[in-house]
Protein backbone atom coordinates (compact mmCIF):
# COMPACT_ATOMS: atom_id res chain seq x y z
CA UNK A 1 0.00 0.00 0.00
CA UNK A 2 1.34 3.41 -0.91
CA UNK A 3 1.74 5.76 2.01
CA UNK A 4 0.05 9.07 2.69
CA UNK A 5 1.91 11.56 4.89
CA UNK A 6 -0.30 14.01 6.76
CA UNK A 7 1.97 16.86 7.89
CA UNK A 8 0.87 19.62 10.25
CA UNK A 9 2.88 22.83 9.98
CA UNK A 10 3.03 25.93 12.15
CA UNK A 11 4.09 27.37 15.46
CA UNK A 12 1.71 26.94 18.42
CA UNK A 13 3.54 29.82 20.14
CA UNK A 14 2.00 32.06 17.46
CA UNK A 15 -1.65 31.39 18.21
CA UNK A 16 -3.57 30.55 14.97
CA UNK A 17 -0.29 29.86 13.15
CA UNK A 18 -0.32 26.64 15.18
CA UNK A 19 -3.64 25.39 13.75
CA UNK A 20 -1.81 22.76 11.66
CA UNK A 21 -0.29 21.29 14.83
CA UNK A 22 -3.55 21.50 16.80
CA UNK A 23 -5.44 19.63 14.06
CA UNK A 24 -2.67 17.05 13.77
CA UNK A 25 -2.89 16.34 17.51
CA UNK A 26 -6.67 15.89 17.20
CA UNK A 27 -6.11 13.42 14.37
CA UNK A 28 -3.60 11.53 16.53
CA UNK A 29 -6.26 11.24 19.24
CA UNK A 30 -8.57 9.65 16.67
CA UNK A 31 -5.88 7.53 15.04
CA UNK A 32 -7.99 4.34 15.22
CA UNK A 33 -10.69 5.87 13.01
CA UNK A 34 -8.19 6.71 10.26
CA UNK A 35 -6.79 4.44 7.53
CA UNK A 36 -3.78 2.38 8.65
CA UNK A 37 -1.46 3.29 5.81
CA UNK A 38 -1.07 6.95 6.72
CA UNK A 39 1.55 8.65 8.86
CA UNK A 40 0.84 11.71 10.98
CA UNK A 41 3.79 14.11 11.22
CA UNK A 42 4.34 17.25 13.27
CA UNK A 43 6.32 19.40 10.84
CA UNK A 44 6.57 22.36 13.23
CA UNK A 45 8.31 25.33 11.69
CA UNK A 46 10.26 22.90 9.61
CA UNK A 47 11.62 24.95 6.73
CA UNK A 48 13.95 23.06 4.47
CA UNK A 49 13.80 19.95 6.63
CA UNK A 50 10.32 19.34 5.21
CA UNK A 51 11.93 18.64 1.87
CA UNK A 52 13.41 15.44 3.27
CA UNK A 53 10.08 14.47 4.84
CA UNK A 54 8.20 14.96 1.55
CA UNK A 55 10.64 12.61 -0.16
CA UNK A 56 9.39 9.72 2.00
CA UNK A 57 5.84 9.71 0.68
CA UNK A 58 3.88 9.00 -2.49
CA UNK A 59 1.07 11.23 -1.32
CA UNK A 60 1.11 14.21 1.03
CA UNK A 61 -1.55 16.28 2.72
CA UNK A 62 -0.19 19.39 4.46
CA UNK A 63 -2.23 21.17 7.13
CA UNK A 64 -1.22 24.80 7.55
CA UNK A 65 -2.48 28.29 8.30
CA UNK A 66 -3.00 29.98 4.93
CA UNK A 67 -4.21 33.51 4.24
CA UNK A 68 -6.93 33.16 1.62
CA UNK A 69 -9.22 36.11 2.37
CA UNK A 70 -11.90 34.09 4.09
CA UNK A 71 -13.60 33.97 7.48
CA UNK A 72 -11.17 32.92 10.26
CA UNK A 73 -11.32 29.17 10.80
CA UNK A 74 -12.64 28.36 7.33
CA UNK A 75 -10.54 26.15 5.12
CA UNK A 76 -9.76 25.58 1.48
CA UNK A 77 -8.04 22.71 -0.27
CA UNK A 78 -5.17 23.80 -2.49
CA UNK A 79 -3.63 21.59 -5.12
CA UNK A 80 0.07 21.51 -5.86
CA UNK A 81 -0.56 23.61 -8.99
CA UNK A 82 -2.20 26.35 -6.93
CA UNK A 83 0.56 26.75 -4.37
CA UNK A 84 2.46 29.44 -6.24
CA UNK A 85 -0.32 31.84 -5.32
CA UNK A 86 -0.58 30.88 -1.67
CA UNK A 87 0.50 33.23 1.06
CA UNK A 88 1.84 30.59 3.40
CA UNK A 89 2.13 30.86 7.11
CA UNK A 90 1.98 34.61 7.78
CA UNK A 91 5.17 34.40 9.82
CA UNK A 92 8.11 34.56 7.46
CA UNK A 93 10.54 33.47 10.13
CA UNK A 94 11.67 30.37 8.31
CA UNK A 95 14.59 30.36 5.96
CA UNK A 96 12.59 28.66 3.24
CA UNK A 97 8.82 28.48 2.80
CA UNK A 98 6.65 25.62 1.65
CA UNK A 99 6.52 26.88 -1.93
CA UNK A 100 10.31 26.71 -2.07
CA UNK A 101 10.36 23.31 -0.38
CA UNK A 102 8.04 22.01 -3.11
CA UNK A 103 10.21 23.62 -5.78
CA UNK A 104 13.26 21.90 -4.31
CA UNK A 105 11.42 18.56 -4.25
CA UNK A 106 10.46 19.07 -7.91
CA UNK A 107 14.04 19.77 -8.92
CA UNK A 108 15.14 16.53 -7.29
CA UNK A 109 12.23 14.55 -8.71
CA UNK A 110 11.14 13.80 -5.18
CA UNK A 111 7.76 15.52 -5.18
CA UNK A 112 5.03 13.13 -4.03
CA UNK A 113 2.71 11.84 -6.78
CA UNK A 114 -0.14 13.77 -5.29
CA UNK A 115 0.03 16.76 -3.01
CA UNK A 116 -2.66 18.84 -1.36
CA UNK A 117 -2.79 21.54 1.25
CA UNK A 118 -5.56 21.89 3.79
CA UNK A 119 -5.29 25.63 4.40
CA UNK A 120 -7.04 27.24 7.36
CA UNK A 121 -7.57 31.00 7.46
CA UNK A 122 -5.99 32.39 10.67
CA UNK A 123 -7.24 35.44 12.56
CA UNK A 124 -4.54 36.10 15.13
CA UNK A 125 -0.87 35.18 14.63
CA UNK A 126 0.54 37.31 17.43
CA UNK A 127 2.86 35.83 20.04
CA UNK A 128 1.15 33.62 22.57
CA UNK A 129 -0.40 30.24 23.13
CA UNK A 130 -3.96 29.23 22.28
CA UNK A 131 -6.07 29.73 19.16
CA UNK A 132 -8.37 32.71 18.66
CA UNK A 133 -12.01 32.10 19.69
CA UNK A 134 -13.11 32.23 16.02
CA UNK A 135 -10.73 29.44 15.03
CA UNK A 136 -11.26 27.47 18.26
CA UNK A 137 -14.99 27.13 17.65
CA UNK A 138 -14.35 25.60 14.24
CA UNK A 139 -11.74 23.04 15.31
CA UNK A 140 -14.17 20.10 15.56
CA UNK A 141 -15.64 20.92 12.14
CA UNK A 142 -12.12 21.16 10.69
CA UNK A 143 -11.14 17.77 12.13
CA UNK A 144 -14.22 16.17 10.55
CA UNK A 145 -13.50 17.79 7.20
CA UNK A 146 -9.88 16.69 7.42
CA UNK A 147 -10.95 13.10 8.02
CA UNK A 148 -13.18 13.28 4.95
CA UNK A 149 -10.31 14.69 2.95
CA UNK A 150 -7.96 11.94 4.11
CA UNK A 151 -10.54 9.30 3.12
CA UNK A 152 -11.10 10.83 -0.31
CA UNK A 153 -7.35 11.12 -0.76
CA UNK A 154 -6.69 7.51 0.21
CA UNK A 155 -9.55 6.32 -2.01
CA UNK A 156 -7.58 7.52 -5.02
CA UNK A 157 -4.87 4.90 -4.68
Amino acid sequence: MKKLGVIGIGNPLRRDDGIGIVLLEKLKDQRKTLPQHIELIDGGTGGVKLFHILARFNHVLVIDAVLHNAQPGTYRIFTEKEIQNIDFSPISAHEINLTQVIELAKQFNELPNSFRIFGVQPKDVSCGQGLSPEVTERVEMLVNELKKEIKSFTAMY
Partner: protein
Amino acid sequence: MTKDFSVHVEHLTRVEGHGNITLDVKNGTIEKIQWSVVEAPRFFEAMLRGQQYNELRAITSRICGICSIGHSLASLKATEDALNVSISEQTQLLRRLAIHAENMQSHILHIGYLAAPDFLGVGSVFPLLASKHKETVLKIVKLHRLANEMSDLICGRTIHPIRLVVGGFSMVPTKKQLLTLQKRLKESKPVVHDVAKILLSVADAIPQFTRETEYIALSSDDEYALYEGVLNSTDTGRFHEYHNYQLLTNEYVVPQSTAKYTKHNRASYMVGALARFNLNSKQLHPWAQDVAKMFNLKPINYNPFMNTIAQLVEFAHSIDDSIQLIDTLLDRGIKEEKPTKVVVKSGRGVGLVEVPRGLLIHDYTLNSKGYCIKANCIIPTNQNHANIQQDMEKLVPEIINKTPKEIELILEMLVRAYDPCISCSTHYLDVTFK
Protein backbone atom coordinates in the same frame (compact mmCIF):
# COMPACT_ATOMS: atom_id res chain seq x y z
CA MET B 1 34.61 59.05 -3.70
CA THR B 2 32.22 62.01 -3.75
CA LYS B 3 28.87 60.41 -4.43
CA ASP B 4 25.72 59.80 -2.42
CA PHE B 5 24.23 56.32 -2.08
CA SER B 6 20.57 55.64 -2.34
CA VAL B 7 19.91 51.94 -2.42
CA HIS B 8 17.06 50.18 -0.73
CA VAL B 9 16.76 46.40 -0.48
CA GLU B 10 13.95 44.74 1.37
CA HIS B 11 14.03 41.31 2.92
CA LEU B 12 17.59 40.16 2.72
CA THR B 13 17.27 36.47 1.99
CA ARG B 14 19.05 33.37 3.17
CA VAL B 15 19.23 34.25 6.82
CA GLU B 16 16.82 33.02 9.45
CA GLY B 17 14.44 35.91 10.02
CA HIS B 18 14.87 39.64 9.45
CA GLY B 19 17.02 42.62 10.44
CA ASN B 20 17.96 46.03 9.03
CA ILE B 21 21.18 47.45 7.66
CA THR B 22 21.28 51.19 7.15
CA LEU B 23 24.18 52.93 5.46
CA ASP B 24 24.10 56.66 4.75
CA VAL B 25 26.87 58.06 2.56
CA LYS B 26 26.85 61.74 1.59
CA ASN B 27 29.54 63.34 -0.56
CA GLY B 28 31.57 60.20 -0.10
CA THR B 29 31.48 60.47 3.69
CA ILE B 30 29.90 57.78 5.82
CA GLU B 31 27.27 59.46 7.96
CA LYS B 32 25.68 56.39 9.45
CA ILE B 33 26.21 52.63 9.60
CA GLN B 34 23.70 50.74 11.64
CA TRP B 35 22.81 47.11 12.09
CA SER B 36 19.49 46.91 13.85
CA VAL B 37 17.09 44.15 14.63
CA VAL B 38 13.52 44.42 15.71
CA GLU B 39 12.63 41.89 18.32
CA ALA B 40 9.14 41.08 19.48
CA PRO B 41 8.75 41.33 23.26
CA ARG B 42 10.62 38.47 24.90
CA PHE B 43 7.43 36.47 24.85
CA PHE B 44 9.01 33.03 25.11
CA GLU B 45 10.16 33.81 28.61
CA ALA B 46 6.71 35.13 29.51
CA MET B 47 5.16 31.96 28.11
CA LEU B 48 7.32 29.83 30.38
CA ARG B 49 6.05 31.50 33.53
CA GLY B 50 3.30 29.41 35.11
CA GLN B 51 4.30 26.23 33.25
CA GLN B 52 5.30 23.05 35.06
CA TYR B 53 8.96 21.91 34.93
CA ASN B 54 8.24 19.03 32.54
CA GLU B 55 6.52 21.32 30.02
CA LEU B 56 9.36 23.83 29.67
CA ARG B 57 11.38 21.79 27.18
CA ALA B 58 8.42 21.19 24.87
CA ILE B 59 7.59 24.90 24.78
CA THR B 60 11.13 26.15 24.26
CA SER B 61 11.77 23.60 21.50
CA ARG B 62 9.10 25.46 19.54
CA ILE B 63 11.10 28.70 19.65
CA CYS B 64 12.83 27.68 16.45
CA GLY B 65 12.61 24.89 13.90
CA ILE B 66 16.33 25.04 13.21
CA CYS B 67 17.69 24.91 16.78
CA SER B 68 14.92 22.93 18.46
CA ILE B 69 17.36 20.28 19.75
CA GLY B 70 19.68 22.95 21.19
CA HIS B 71 16.82 24.75 22.93
CA SER B 72 15.62 21.39 24.27
CA LEU B 73 19.02 20.55 25.72
CA ALA B 74 19.57 23.99 27.29
CA SER B 75 16.08 23.75 28.75
CA LEU B 76 16.63 20.26 30.15
CA LYS B 77 19.98 21.23 31.66
CA ALA B 78 18.44 24.30 33.34
CA THR B 79 15.50 22.27 34.66
CA GLU B 80 17.73 19.44 35.91
CA ASP B 81 20.06 21.97 37.53
CA ALA B 82 17.13 23.57 39.37
CA LEU B 83 15.81 20.19 40.56
CA ASN B 84 19.21 18.58 41.28
CA VAL B 85 18.50 15.79 38.79
CA SER B 86 21.49 13.79 37.61
CA ILE B 87 21.46 11.84 34.36
CA SER B 88 22.99 8.51 33.35
CA GLU B 89 26.12 8.09 31.27
CA GLN B 90 23.97 6.69 28.43
CA THR B 91 21.81 9.83 28.47
CA GLN B 92 24.95 11.98 28.39
CA LEU B 93 26.26 10.09 25.37
CA LEU B 94 22.93 10.21 23.52
CA ARG B 95 22.56 13.93 24.19
CA ARG B 96 26.02 14.47 22.75
CA LEU B 97 24.92 12.60 19.64
CA ALA B 98 21.78 14.76 19.48
CA ILE B 99 23.81 17.96 19.58
CA HIS B 100 26.09 16.67 16.81
CA ALA B 101 23.04 15.83 14.70
CA GLU B 102 21.71 19.35 15.03
CA ASN B 103 25.09 20.95 14.47
CA MET B 104 25.51 18.91 11.31
CA GLN B 105 22.09 19.64 9.86
CA SER B 106 22.27 23.34 10.68
CA HIS B 107 25.86 23.81 9.48
CA ILE B 108 25.36 22.05 6.15
CA LEU B 109 22.13 23.98 5.63
CA HIS B 110 24.02 27.22 6.08
CA ILE B 111 27.07 26.18 4.07
CA GLY B 112 25.14 24.63 1.22
CA TYR B 113 21.84 26.41 0.84
CA LEU B 114 22.60 29.85 2.27
CA ALA B 115 26.31 30.72 1.96
CA ALA B 116 27.45 28.66 -1.06
CA PRO B 117 25.31 30.69 -3.50
CA ASP B 118 27.42 33.73 -2.52
CA PHE B 119 30.66 31.88 -3.26
CA LEU B 120 29.30 30.59 -6.55
CA GLY B 121 27.93 33.97 -7.59
CA VAL B 122 24.20 33.27 -7.66
CA GLY B 123 21.22 34.52 -5.68
CA SER B 124 20.06 31.26 -4.13
CA VAL B 125 20.36 27.50 -4.23
CA PHE B 126 17.80 27.19 -7.05
CA PRO B 127 19.97 28.49 -9.92
CA LEU B 128 22.68 26.09 -8.75
CA LEU B 129 20.39 23.19 -9.55
CA ALA B 130 20.22 24.25 -13.17
CA SER B 131 23.96 24.85 -13.43
CA LYS B 132 27.16 22.85 -13.53
CA HIS B 133 27.00 22.82 -9.73
CA LYS B 134 24.04 20.46 -9.56
CA GLU B 135 26.29 17.58 -8.45
CA THR B 136 27.57 19.74 -5.58
CA VAL B 137 24.04 20.49 -4.45
CA LEU B 138 23.21 16.79 -4.60
CA LYS B 139 26.15 16.06 -2.29
CA ILE B 140 25.01 18.76 0.12
CA VAL B 141 21.45 17.44 0.10
CA LYS B 142 22.77 13.96 0.85
CA LEU B 143 24.67 15.23 3.91
CA HIS B 144 21.71 17.30 5.07
CA ARG B 145 19.41 14.30 4.79
CA LEU B 146 21.79 12.13 6.81
CA ALA B 147 21.95 14.73 9.59
CA ASN B 148 18.16 14.99 9.63
CA GLU B 149 17.72 11.25 9.80
CA MET B 150 20.27 11.11 12.61
CA SER B 151 18.14 13.66 14.53
CA ASP B 152 15.07 11.54 13.83
CA LEU B 153 16.74 8.46 15.19
CA ILE B 154 18.14 9.98 18.37
CA CYS B 155 15.42 12.50 19.20
CA GLY B 156 12.30 10.85 17.78
CA ARG B 157 11.83 13.32 14.98
CA THR B 158 13.83 15.87 13.06
CA ILE B 159 11.76 18.89 13.96
CA HIS B 160 10.90 19.59 17.57
CA PRO B 161 12.30 16.50 19.28
CA ILE B 162 10.11 14.37 21.51
CA ARG B 163 12.36 11.76 23.12
CA LEU B 164 14.43 14.24 25.13
CA VAL B 165 12.84 14.52 28.57
CA VAL B 166 13.83 15.70 32.04
CA GLY B 167 16.20 13.08 33.47
CA GLY B 168 16.80 11.09 30.29
CA PHE B 169 15.17 9.72 27.16
CA SER B 170 11.62 8.43 26.70
CA MET B 171 12.93 5.98 24.10
CA VAL B 172 16.41 5.06 22.87
CA PRO B 173 17.64 3.78 19.51
CA THR B 174 18.44 0.09 19.09
CA LYS B 175 21.91 -1.37 18.62
CA LYS B 176 21.03 -2.19 15.01
CA GLN B 177 19.89 1.38 14.32
CA LEU B 178 23.06 2.81 15.83
CA LEU B 179 25.23 0.49 13.76
CA THR B 180 23.39 1.53 10.58
CA LEU B 181 23.84 5.19 11.48
CA GLN B 182 27.52 4.66 12.18
CA LYS B 183 28.00 2.97 8.82
CA ARG B 184 26.31 5.86 7.04
CA LEU B 185 28.44 8.41 8.92
CA LYS B 186 31.58 6.60 7.82
CA GLU B 187 30.33 6.47 4.22
CA SER B 188 29.63 10.21 4.28
CA LYS B 189 33.26 11.17 4.88
CA PRO B 190 34.31 11.13 1.21
CA VAL B 191 31.24 13.28 0.41
CA VAL B 192 32.29 15.82 3.04
CA HIS B 193 35.77 15.81 1.59
CA ASP B 194 34.34 16.50 -1.90
CA VAL B 195 32.27 19.40 -0.58
CA ALA B 196 35.35 20.80 1.18
CA LYS B 197 37.35 20.62 -2.06
CA ILE B 198 34.60 22.41 -3.97
CA LEU B 199 34.42 25.14 -1.31
CA LEU B 200 38.20 25.45 -1.41
CA SER B 201 38.07 26.00 -5.18
CA VAL B 202 35.82 29.04 -4.65
CA ALA B 203 37.38 30.23 -1.38
CA ASP B 204 38.69 33.35 -3.13
CA ALA B 205 35.16 34.67 -2.85
CA ILE B 206 35.53 34.86 0.94
CA PRO B 207 36.35 38.52 1.71
CA GLN B 208 39.76 39.13 3.27
CA PHE B 209 38.60 41.18 6.21
CA THR B 210 39.83 41.04 9.78
CA ARG B 211 38.89 42.78 13.00
CA GLU B 212 40.24 41.76 16.37
CA THR B 213 37.48 40.96 18.80
CA GLU B 214 36.71 38.77 21.80
CA TYR B 215 35.44 35.22 21.24
CA ILE B 216 33.32 33.43 23.83
CA ALA B 217 32.39 29.74 23.94
CA LEU B 218 32.26 26.81 26.30
CA SER B 219 35.52 24.93 26.84
CA SER B 220 36.24 21.59 28.46
CA ASP B 221 39.40 19.76 29.53
CA ASP B 222 38.00 16.55 28.08
CA GLU B 223 36.69 17.34 24.62
CA TYR B 224 35.72 19.93 22.00
CA ALA B 225 32.94 21.44 24.11
CA LEU B 226 29.40 21.41 22.79
CA TYR B 227 27.15 19.78 25.39
CA GLU B 228 29.25 20.42 28.49
CA GLY B 229 31.91 22.94 29.45
CA VAL B 230 32.77 26.13 31.28
CA LEU B 231 32.45 29.64 29.91
CA ASN B 232 35.64 30.76 28.24
CA SER B 233 36.89 33.95 26.59
CA THR B 234 39.85 34.59 24.31
CA ASP B 235 40.37 37.82 26.28
CA THR B 236 39.89 36.83 29.89
CA GLY B 237 40.05 33.04 30.07
CA ARG B 238 37.73 30.68 31.91
CA PHE B 239 34.78 31.85 33.99
CA HIS B 240 33.56 29.06 36.25
CA GLU B 241 30.55 30.64 37.95
CA TYR B 242 27.93 29.62 35.44
CA HIS B 243 25.06 30.78 37.68
CA ASN B 244 26.50 34.28 37.32
CA TYR B 245 26.70 34.16 33.51
CA GLN B 246 25.17 37.66 33.46
CA LEU B 247 28.56 39.01 34.53
CA LEU B 248 29.82 37.77 31.19
CA THR B 249 26.87 38.44 28.90
CA ASN B 250 25.96 41.90 30.30
CA GLU B 251 22.81 42.31 28.25
CA TYR B 252 21.94 45.91 27.42
CA VAL B 253 19.39 47.79 25.39
CA VAL B 254 20.20 49.89 22.31
CA PRO B 255 17.88 52.49 20.76
CA GLN B 256 18.00 51.08 17.22
CA SER B 257 16.87 47.61 18.17
CA THR B 258 14.41 45.84 20.39
CA ALA B 259 16.80 42.89 20.56
CA LYS B 260 19.08 43.05 23.59
CA TYR B 261 22.79 43.33 22.83
CA THR B 262 25.65 41.89 24.88
CA LYS B 263 29.26 42.80 25.59
CA HIS B 264 32.03 41.61 27.88
CA ASN B 265 35.64 42.74 27.78
CA ARG B 266 35.32 44.93 24.67
CA ALA B 267 32.55 46.71 22.80
CA SER B 268 31.37 43.36 21.47
CA TYR B 269 32.12 39.64 21.32
CA MET B 270 31.41 36.83 18.90
CA VAL B 271 29.92 33.41 19.54
CA GLY B 272 29.48 30.49 17.14
CA ALA B 273 31.60 28.05 15.19
CA LEU B 274 34.52 30.46 14.70
CA ALA B 275 34.53 31.34 18.43
CA ARG B 276 34.57 27.65 19.33
CA PHE B 277 37.32 26.98 16.81
CA ASN B 278 39.38 29.88 18.13
CA LEU B 279 39.13 28.63 21.70
CA ASN B 280 39.14 24.85 21.31
CA SER B 281 40.61 23.88 17.94
CA LYS B 282 43.27 21.61 19.48
CA GLN B 283 40.51 19.27 20.65
CA LEU B 284 39.03 18.74 17.19
CA HIS B 285 39.34 15.25 15.74
CA PRO B 286 42.39 14.95 13.44
CA TRP B 287 40.32 14.80 10.25
CA ALA B 288 38.54 18.05 11.19
CA GLN B 289 41.94 19.63 11.84
CA ASP B 290 42.97 18.52 8.34
CA VAL B 291 39.91 20.27 6.89
CA ALA B 292 40.91 23.44 8.78
CA LYS B 293 44.41 23.18 7.31
CA MET B 294 42.99 22.95 3.78
CA PHE B 295 41.63 26.48 4.30
CA ASN B 296 44.60 27.67 6.33
CA LEU B 297 42.24 28.27 9.22
CA LYS B 298 44.26 28.75 12.42
CA PRO B 299 43.39 30.17 15.82
CA ILE B 300 42.91 33.01 16.48
CA ASN B 301 41.30 33.82 13.16
CA TYR B 302 39.78 37.30 13.18
CA ASN B 303 37.88 37.10 9.89
CA PRO B 304 34.14 36.70 10.62
CA PHE B 305 33.55 35.52 7.04
CA MET B 306 35.55 32.39 7.98
CA ASN B 307 32.73 31.34 10.32
CA THR B 308 31.29 29.35 7.41
CA ILE B 309 34.57 27.46 7.05
CA ALA B 310 34.67 26.85 10.81
CA GLN B 311 31.20 25.31 10.41
CA LEU B 312 32.56 22.95 7.76
CA VAL B 313 35.41 21.99 10.11
CA GLU B 314 32.92 21.33 12.90
CA PHE B 315 30.80 19.24 10.53
CA ALA B 316 33.79 16.94 9.98
CA HIS B 317 34.44 16.85 13.74
CA SER B 318 30.81 15.96 14.47
CA ILE B 319 30.98 13.00 12.09
CA ASP B 320 34.11 11.55 13.67
CA ASP B 321 33.00 12.26 17.21
CA SER B 322 29.60 10.67 16.52
CA ILE B 323 31.28 7.54 15.16
CA GLN B 324 33.31 7.38 18.36
CA LEU B 325 30.30 8.06 20.62
CA ILE B 326 28.39 5.22 18.98
CA ASP B 327 31.32 2.89 19.64
CA THR B 328 31.24 3.90 23.31
CA LEU B 329 27.46 3.42 23.51
CA LEU B 330 27.71 -0.02 21.94
CA ASP B 331 30.62 -1.02 24.19
CA ARG B 332 28.55 -0.13 27.23
CA GLY B 333 25.48 -1.88 25.73
CA ILE B 334 22.56 0.35 24.79
CA LYS B 335 19.60 -0.32 27.05
CA GLU B 336 16.11 0.98 27.70
CA GLU B 337 16.27 2.93 30.95
CA LYS B 338 13.72 5.09 32.65
CA PRO B 339 14.49 8.80 33.07
CA THR B 340 15.82 9.73 36.52
CA LYS B 341 12.99 10.17 39.01
CA VAL B 342 12.36 13.81 39.79
CA VAL B 343 11.68 15.12 43.29
CA VAL B 344 9.95 18.44 42.82
CA LYS B 345 11.36 21.36 44.78
CA SER B 346 11.98 25.05 44.42
CA GLY B 347 15.23 26.29 42.97
CA ARG B 348 17.07 28.04 40.20
CA GLY B 349 18.86 26.31 37.36
CA VAL B 350 21.04 27.41 34.50
CA GLY B 351 21.70 25.38 31.35
CA LEU B 352 24.56 26.23 29.00
CA VAL B 353 25.10 24.50 25.64
CA GLU B 354 26.88 25.27 22.41
CA VAL B 355 24.33 25.20 19.58
CA PRO B 356 25.10 25.75 15.88
CA ARG B 357 25.15 29.56 16.19
CA GLY B 358 26.92 29.70 19.54
CA LEU B 359 26.40 29.83 23.27
CA LEU B 360 22.80 29.30 24.37
CA ILE B 361 21.72 29.95 27.96
CA HIS B 362 18.43 29.04 29.63
CA ASP B 363 17.87 30.14 33.23
CA TYR B 364 14.74 29.07 35.16
CA THR B 365 13.47 29.68 38.66
CA LEU B 366 10.92 27.12 39.88
CA ASN B 367 8.58 27.33 42.87
CA SER B 368 8.10 24.50 45.39
CA LYS B 369 5.49 22.85 43.14
CA GLY B 370 7.83 22.82 40.15
CA TYR B 371 6.18 25.68 38.29
CA CYS B 372 8.37 28.20 36.51
CA ILE B 373 8.16 31.66 38.07
CA LYS B 374 11.02 33.30 36.18
CA ALA B 375 12.86 32.54 32.93
CA ASN B 376 15.70 34.07 30.98
CA CYS B 377 16.93 32.84 27.60
CA ILE B 378 20.07 34.28 26.00
CA ILE B 379 20.20 33.39 22.32
CA PRO B 380 23.48 33.19 20.34
CA THR B 381 22.31 35.53 17.59
CA ASN B 382 21.60 38.30 20.09
CA GLN B 383 25.15 37.99 21.45
CA ASN B 384 26.48 38.56 17.93
CA HIS B 385 24.50 41.72 17.10
CA ALA B 386 27.02 44.16 18.58
CA ASN B 387 29.88 42.33 16.87
CA ILE B 388 28.13 42.60 13.48
CA GLN B 389 27.75 46.36 14.10
CA GLN B 390 31.44 46.71 14.99
CA ASP B 391 32.44 44.68 11.92
CA MET B 392 30.37 46.91 9.67
CA GLU B 393 31.95 50.04 11.09
CA LYS B 394 35.42 48.73 10.22
CA LEU B 395 34.44 47.04 6.96
CA VAL B 396 32.53 49.81 5.17
CA PRO B 397 35.42 52.33 5.02
CA GLU B 398 37.59 49.53 3.57
CA ILE B 399 35.16 48.86 0.73
CA ILE B 400 33.71 52.35 0.26
CA ASN B 401 35.17 52.69 -3.24
CA LYS B 402 33.23 49.72 -4.52
CA THR B 403 29.86 50.21 -6.18
CA PRO B 404 26.79 50.37 -3.93
CA LYS B 405 25.71 47.00 -5.30
CA GLU B 406 29.04 45.41 -4.40
CA ILE B 407 28.96 47.00 -0.93
CA GLU B 408 25.45 45.75 -0.45
CA LEU B 409 26.46 42.19 -1.35
CA ILE B 410 29.49 42.20 0.97
CA LEU B 411 27.37 43.49 3.88
CA GLU B 412 24.77 40.84 3.17
CA MET B 413 27.51 38.22 3.09
CA LEU B 414 28.82 39.50 6.41
CA VAL B 415 25.45 39.11 8.09
CA ARG B 416 24.98 35.70 6.48
CA ALA B 417 28.45 34.57 7.64
CA TYR B 418 27.17 34.87 11.22
CA ASP B 419 24.35 32.49 10.21
CA PRO B 420 21.95 34.57 12.30
CA CYS B 421 18.87 32.74 13.46
CA ILE B 422 16.81 35.83 13.92
CA SER B 423 13.57 33.92 14.24
CA CYS B 424 14.77 32.87 17.69
CA SER B 425 15.05 36.43 18.77
CA THR B 426 13.92 38.90 16.14
CA HIS B 427 11.59 39.27 13.23
CA TYR B 428 12.72 41.65 10.52
CA LEU B 429 15.54 42.17 8.05
CA ASP B 430 15.94 44.65 5.24
CA VAL B 431 18.90 46.61 3.96
CA THR B 432 18.79 50.35 3.39
CA PHE B 433 21.47 52.50 1.82
CA LYS B 434 20.75 56.19 1.48
